[in-house]
Every structure is written in structure tokens, then in C-alpha cells.
């Protein structure tokens, strides 16, 4: 295996050097195609190295400067340590089928894989890779054309996650929740999942990430989703990472004709959170709702970078991002809408709104439209503002304390993004999670 960096002109950072060392010693289990895939991915990564602020897509999140060192790849947790995480998961109020990962490893004893609904198949990524599952290796890294160093790193190092397939025409009512709980020790987790929703099938997927530790740990997660013709997926991602955690996640989705994706991401904690989404509307009449909300404090930094690629007629996308920022936290929203030639009657709307609860907080917003078709509707907008003190006064004049008054108004602000969540029990659980978080302010 040759991992020589392709750009020797630049001195590698310590983190980049360390990544190359780890990659060189990594045992690649599984099929030969997999080793090829990993090597190609690491080579692609080495060409650019860690992204920095000169990369347009990473303008506000300079990973090269931020990633000082690389934490060791996680070792399997002791069974007792894994069991102690039993109650850790967010959204426990939702009767989801839970698949639990602690410290980057699948924990069968905490997971519910019994009585799978007809047409639902679930396999851990490690199992699929070890078996050399052809359907998996054929798709991994190929759901979209994503040229991104963080995603390439994920492909090079992907360790654990799930491969889920919903058979054609099947409707899996019960939400499937992937619970990723960080371990106690500093570590790097490379998590990867692949979801295929076949023709006309439906499912709800929750991915929750949490960590109770104040130690610094690094998560690099990626989820690839294939929605075949007429398939529907509602996906929720919740990040409540530890206060020193860095979390970089890539979401890649490909939508065939009349497929529907409803995606909502909620960021409640983590020193650095980068969520990048690459959504391709490849079939006529495909629809993607991509929404997110940040509630940040201290020096937390959350970056949502979105690429909506309209490649077919009558495709629709609705993007809505809301940020509530306290202290000196920062939210970044970068959204790009591309309408390819021939994608007539595209309807694409994008909105980012930020609510600053303190003077030191900051919101950056960079929308971008690239339109190569003439009969389309595209709109984008953004707002940044503070709470309306007149409304705070009105609520307080009824006896409501300041924290509660601000929480009510902030919930109302975030509510618009949460209201779009279609699964009722998930929506209510998310609202409760937000309500709890907003009342935990000092």
C-alpha cells in the first residue's frame, strides 16, 4: 500500500501525519474490493489533506487548524462499560427499534434486532464488510459523487455502522434508531451506514450521537441513503455530544423519481459540529425537505453545509435551518442549490434564520444558486436577530420568569423546523428535548 502524500510541497500537519501512519498499519478486513476502495479514498484525501478555510466548502470551519491531533482509533469497550450506557440514549420516549453502538462498537445485547418486519434487513457494517456483501460494496461511497476530504477519510477508515435495506413496497412503521454513544476515553470514531429504501418502500431512521464525557473525542460519521422510485424516508439526526467533542458528519442521498426525503438534524452540543449534506434529486418529481436546528452555547460551533443537486424535472427541495445562539457560539449555514440543464419546473427554497441570545454569538450564512434551466422557482433568504424584548415583557407581565419567557419564544422560533417532522411521536420527543435544553440555561 502506498500512502505517499501527493502534495509534498506542503508540510503535513501532525494530524495528517498521524492519519497516514494509522492508515498504513490498518488491517483491512473483508473483500479485496474494499481494500481498493479504502486505498483510493485515502489517496484522494492525501491529495488535499485536511480541508482549511481556503476550501470554499470549509470556509468557516478550518478543520486543518482545528484538528490538532488524532485520537487513537477506539478499542472495543468492556461489556460492563457498554451496559452502563443502557439509559444514555436521547429520544427514549420513542418506541424505536434501537441499534446501539458504544465507543464505536456495535453492542448486540443493547440492540433490538428481533422480529424484524417483513422486508427489513439489518446488518452491522463490520459484518457486511467481513462477508464481502456484494450489494454493500457495490454502493459504499458510490451513492453520490462526493469529492470531500472528510468523507474520503470516512471511507478510508470506516469501522462500524449499519447496512439497512427496506424491501420494495414495504412500509416499516416503527422508527429505527441508531444510537451512537461515545466512550469515556479520548478516541476517534469512524462510523458509516448505508440505507437502501427500495421502490415504494417507507421507513423512519433516527441517528443519535451523544457523549457524556468532557474529554475530547472525534466522530467522523457518514450515512449514505438510496431512495429508489417512490420510496420515502424520514431521517432525524440528533447530536448531543460532549462539550469538547468534534463531530463531522456527511450525509449523502440519492433520490429517484417521486422519492421523498424528509431530513431534520438537531444539534444540542459539541465543541465543533459539522454536518454536510449532499442530496441529489435524480428522478422526476423527487422531493427533499432538509431542515435543521442548532441550540448552541459557550464556544460551540456548528456548521451546516448543504448541496442540493436538482438533476430532474419537477424536483422540489425545501431547506430550513434555525439557530439559537448563546454566549460566543457560532452557527454557519452554507447552502448551494444547483439546477442542472433540463431540470425544468424545479422548485427550490432555502431559508436560514438565527436568533442571537447574546452579543458575542455569531451567525454566518452563505447561500449560492447555480441555475442552468429557465423555467424554475428558486428562492433563498436569511435573517439574524435577537429576541423581541416587547414580547419578553408581555410574557413577564403575566408572571412568567425571564428564562421561561425566553424559552417559550425560542421554542416558537425553532418550532417551525420541528413542526415539519412527520412522525408524531418523534416530533413530540424532539420538541420535549428542545424544551428541556432551553430550560437548562443558567
Amino acid at each position: 500500500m502506498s500512502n505517499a502524500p501527493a502534495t509534498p510541497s506542503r508540510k503535513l500537519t501532525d494530524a495528517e501525519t498521524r492519519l497516514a501512519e494509522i492508515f498504513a498499519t490498518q488491517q483491512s478486513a473483508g473483500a479485496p474490493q474494499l481494500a481498493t476502495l479504502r486505498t483510493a479514498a485515502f489517496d484522494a484525501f492525501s491529495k488535499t489533506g485536511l480541508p482549511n478555510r481556503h476550501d470554499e466548502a470549509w470556509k468557516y470551519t478550518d478543520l486543518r487548524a482545528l484538528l490538532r491531533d488524532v485520537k487513537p482509533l477506539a478499542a472495543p469497550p468492556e461489556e460492563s462499560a457498554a451496559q452502563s450506557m443502557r439509559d444514555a440514549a436521547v429520544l427514549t420516549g420513542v418506541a424505536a427499534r434501537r441499534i446501539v453502538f458504544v465507543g464505536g462498537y456495535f453492542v448486540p445485547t443493547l440492540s433490538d434486532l428481533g422480529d424484524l418486519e417483513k422486508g427489513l434487513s439489518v446488518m452491522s457494517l463490520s459484518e457486511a464488510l467481513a462477508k464481502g456483501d456484494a450489494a454493500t460494496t457495490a454502493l459504499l461511497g458510490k451513492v453520490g459523487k462526493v469529492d470531500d476530504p472528510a468523507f474520503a477519510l470516512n471511507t478510508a477508515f470506516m469501522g462500524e455502522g449499519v447496512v439497512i435495506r427496506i424491501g420494495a413496497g414495504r412500509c416499516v412503521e416503527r422508527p429505527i434508531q441508531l444510537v451512537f454513544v461515545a466512550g469515556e476515553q479520548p478516541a476517534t470514531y469512524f462510523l458509516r451506514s448505508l440505507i437502501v429504501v427500495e421502490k415504494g418502500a417507507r421507513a423512519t431512521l433516527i441517528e443519535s450521537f451523544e457523549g457524556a464525557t468532557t474529554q475530547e473525542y472525534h466522530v467522523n460519521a457518514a450515512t449514505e441513503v438510496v431512495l429508489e422510485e417512490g420510496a420515502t424516508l424520514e431521517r432525524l439526526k440528533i447530536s448531543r455530544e460532549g462539550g469538547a467533542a468534534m463531530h463531522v458528519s456527511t450525509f449523502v442521498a440519492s433520490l429517484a423519481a417521486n422519492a421523498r426525503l424528509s431530513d431534520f438534524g438537531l444539534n444540542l452540543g459539541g465543541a465543533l459540529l459539522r454536518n454536510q449534506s449532499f442530496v441529489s434529486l435524480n428522478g422526476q418529481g423527487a422531493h427533499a425537505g432538509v431542515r435543521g436546528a442548532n441550540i448552541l452555547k459557550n464556544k460551540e460551533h456548528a456548521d451546516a453545509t448543504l448541496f442540493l443537486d436538482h438533476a430532474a424535472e419537477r424536483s422540489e427541495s425545501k431547506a430550513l435551518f434555525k439557530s439559537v445562539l448563546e454566549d460566543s457560539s457560532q452557527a454557519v449555514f452554507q447552502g448551494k442549490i444547483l439546477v442542472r440543464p433540463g431540470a425544468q419546473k424545479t422548485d427550490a427554497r432555502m431559508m436560514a434564520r438565527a436568533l442571537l441570545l447574546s452579543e458575542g454569538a455569531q451567525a454566518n450564512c452563505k447561500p449560492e444558486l447555480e441555475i442552468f434551466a429557465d423555467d424554475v422557482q428558486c428562492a433563498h433568504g436569511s435573517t439574524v436577530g435577537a429576541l423581541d424584548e416587547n414580547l419578553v415583557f408581555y410574557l413577564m407581565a403575566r408572571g412568567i420568569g425571564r428564562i421561561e419567557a425566553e424559552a417559550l419564544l425560542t421554542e416558537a422560533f425553532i418550532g417551525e423546523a420541528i413542526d415539519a417532522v412527520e412522525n408524531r411521536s418523534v416530533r413530540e420527543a424532539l420538541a420535549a428535548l428542545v424544551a428541556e435544553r432551553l430550560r437548562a440555561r443558567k
Partner: protein
Amino acid sequence: MTALLEIRNLKAEIAGKQILNGYDLTVKAGEVHAIMGPNGSGKSTLSYVLSGRPGYTITEGQALLAGADLSQMSVDERAAAGLFLAFQYPLEVPGVATMTFLRAAVNAQRKKRGEEEMSSPDLIKSVKEIAKILDMDMEMLRRPVNVGFSGGEKKRAETLQMMLLQPKLCILDETDSGLDIDALKVVSNGVNQLRSKDRGIVVITHYQRLLDYITPDVVHVQSAGRIVRTGGKELALELEETGYASYQSEAA
């Protein structure tokens, strides 16, 4: 006995501009006072100073609620202590459901007073009863607070909040404006139900009309930031005849 509201030589300003110029007013429990006066004489300013709206500064004098200095209390503490202001222009609060808001208000006040919270079924029952008195459609209360309400509906909603919260001192700032005669009767009926020996009511109005339905014990004329004349309910009728012109010139 301590007065419910005792205002002594109160001077207050907004944006560096003095609006209240030595205000004196005493309201005892069981009394209904009317404050009448021309536009711009500082009637709303008085209500905001008492409720603690940011931006209004007391520069001299005192306002005591049941003996407690209001200036030492936060806005929500004043409310929990029993002060209620029915706003001249009630605000719309998008995204906050009316019931959520009412529950938050009732229970925040109860909590501050060390009382038990009101259960949801009890709250809904109370709200339904009050809505019936005020001839309000429960459908309206499923909307966010005041959002899309007409002027008159907002005034009814303010009255509903007041009847639910059972304050010690009610200040109604031009509750009659924007109400047609039928609505005026309904709202006045609601206010009259709050009349009690333990409660004080201050009705701020520009017109005498409201006082046909809510009969005051005392009528004050306010001009240029202070009370310039006090009398019985016949004073309101006299004002109806003569208008405020003489008071405005007196103030100038």
C-alpha cells in the same frame, strides 16, 4: 389599612423625556377608579411604569403595591404579587399556543407565591368557563397568543387572562377602544365579575362610554403626567359635556 396601590409624587421618564410629573394616587381594596385624560397625557406611561416595562425610569417618588415598593421587583414578580395590566395594544406572540401561555402564566405565579400548580384539566375547565362569559370561541384559544385576532378579540383575550389570573390590582388601559357596543357589554360584564372587596380596579379610558357599564367609585382627570382633578362618577359625565380642552390648556 395599607392601600392596595399607593403612588406618591411619582416622576418617571422615557428616553430622557419626563412624562409623569409628580403623580399621586391611592386605590384601596374594593374600589374601582377611572382615570380619564387626553391622548398623550401619560396614561399608558403610568401603566407601564407600574408594570415595570424596560425603558421607563422612575426618577422620583414611589409606587407601592400592598405596601411593597414596585421598583424593587422584576416584571414577573409584580405580576405574581397581584398586578395585572390589560394592554392598550395587546401583543401577538407567534408560535406560542394560547393554552401553553396561560398554563405558564398561572403556574409561574402560583410557584412564586409558593402555591400548588394548577392541573391541566382544571386550567382547561376554568378557561372554558371564562370564555363562555366573554362569548369567546374556544377555537380561537387553540391559536397562538393573539395571532390573527381582531382588535376586539385581543381585548377579550386580555380580559380572559385577567379573569383567569385573579389579580389583586387590575389596570385596564383603554380596554374599550376597538370594541363595538355588544363587545363592550360582554367585556364589562367580565370585569364586573372581578369586582370584590379584596380587589382594586383602575380603568383607564378616553371616553365616558365604558363607565356606563363599569361604574367607578372615583374618577380622576389626568393631564400632562399627573392627576389634576378627582371626583365621583358624575365627573365623567361632566367631561363628556366639556371635553378635555380646559385641562389641556391648564397643563400647558
